[in-house]
């Protein structure tokens, strides 16, 4: 089983989303992004992580094996077309977006690409969108409102711009280890992910204690 963090644009929070999910679900990471930021976070915290090369047959085989495994794997993808392989075999693709115009147009492109994958062998691929690194502005509220009324994806909510996410990355831990308001914020989003990934089970059973 694969949960992928992917978007069609850089700087949206894919790696942040991936490590938050890996920490929350205590799931191994597959780092497909050549930048290797998720792998560095995993190394700091002693979290299981494999780095995979883009566009290799071995990577494709590894992703298929992970997709067919009952164990959850979290894949951190590079942005854009390069990262499509990382989400194409997933059960759920988490698409973080920010609230700028270019971000929203990229989100529309990403949803169209996901639909292409759904129509080509992965009809069960679910899509979840999270609005990342927002501030308390009218624009952010408006974008959130717009995302809530859209369909064809599950809107998970917002992650506010907080220093604690950088601190958690530096420490190689999830935000729950540092406490504060972000803990509840992330737990709410992860519970929604859990409901999508494990619909037959109580979401609490799949979260870290």
């Amino acid at each position, binding site marked *: 089983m694969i949960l992928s963090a992917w978007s069609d*644009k850089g700087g949206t929070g894919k790696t942040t989303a991936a490590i938050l999910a890996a920490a929350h679900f205590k799931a191994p990471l597959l780092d497909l992004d050549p930048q290797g930021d998720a792998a560095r976070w995993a190394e700091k915290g002693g979290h299981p992580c494999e780095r995979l090369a883009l*566009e290799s047959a071995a990577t*494709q085989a590894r992703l*298929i094996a992970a*997709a*067919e495994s009952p164990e959850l794997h979290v894949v951190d993808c590079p942005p854009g*077309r390069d990262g*499509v*392989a990382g989400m*194409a*075999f997933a059960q759920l693709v988490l698409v973080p977006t920010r609230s*700028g*115009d*270019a971000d*929203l*147009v*990229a*989100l*529309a*492109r990403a*949803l*169209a*690409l996901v*639909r*292409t*994958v759904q129509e*080509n*062998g*992965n*009809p*069960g691929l679910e899509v979840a969108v999270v609005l990342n690194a927002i501030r308390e502005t*009218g*624009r952010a*509220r*408006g*974008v959130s*409102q*717009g*995302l809530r*009324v*859209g*369909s*064809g994806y599950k809107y998970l909510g917002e992650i506010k711009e907080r220093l604690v996410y950088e601190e958690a990355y530096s420490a190689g831990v999830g935000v729950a280890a540092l406490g504060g308001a972000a803990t509840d914020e992330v737990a709410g989003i992860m519970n929604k992910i859990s409901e999508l990934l494990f619909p037959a089970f109580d979401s609490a059973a799949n979260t870290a204690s």
Partner: protein
Amino acid sequence: MSTKPKFDPSRVASLLNRGTEEGRGQLAPAPAPVLASVPASVDTEAPTETATTDTDSGPTPPGLGRGAAKPRARTTAAEPEAAEVAGKRPITVRLSEEVIHALVRHQAELRCKPGVRLGESTIGGVMDSLLRGPLGLPAQ
């Protein structure tokens, strides 16, 4: 018994491999892409450059009837891939005509109200246009 198609990793792999071999052209979204220049930001205090579309021969997109200037004729962009530019400078993206019209409608509204910051309802409406209409996603 469910008739829903099942996960077929070999078909997905085939899609990916085809996309790789053909410059990933096979992974393009279903609507025929059209190159257009659109503004990088709508959250502005002053009117910005208008998105371009082929309105010379077609009907005026809705929302342009309140004294707004018509968009200029379509220009041909040389770069085949999306180029994102920070700030409020124009960006070049691949969009379907419906997306372009959604953005043009939005930009026209901006031109009607120079100096006015956009409210939630306007941005929500653009999001709705972008995410629901152009992609053919069913309404809730």
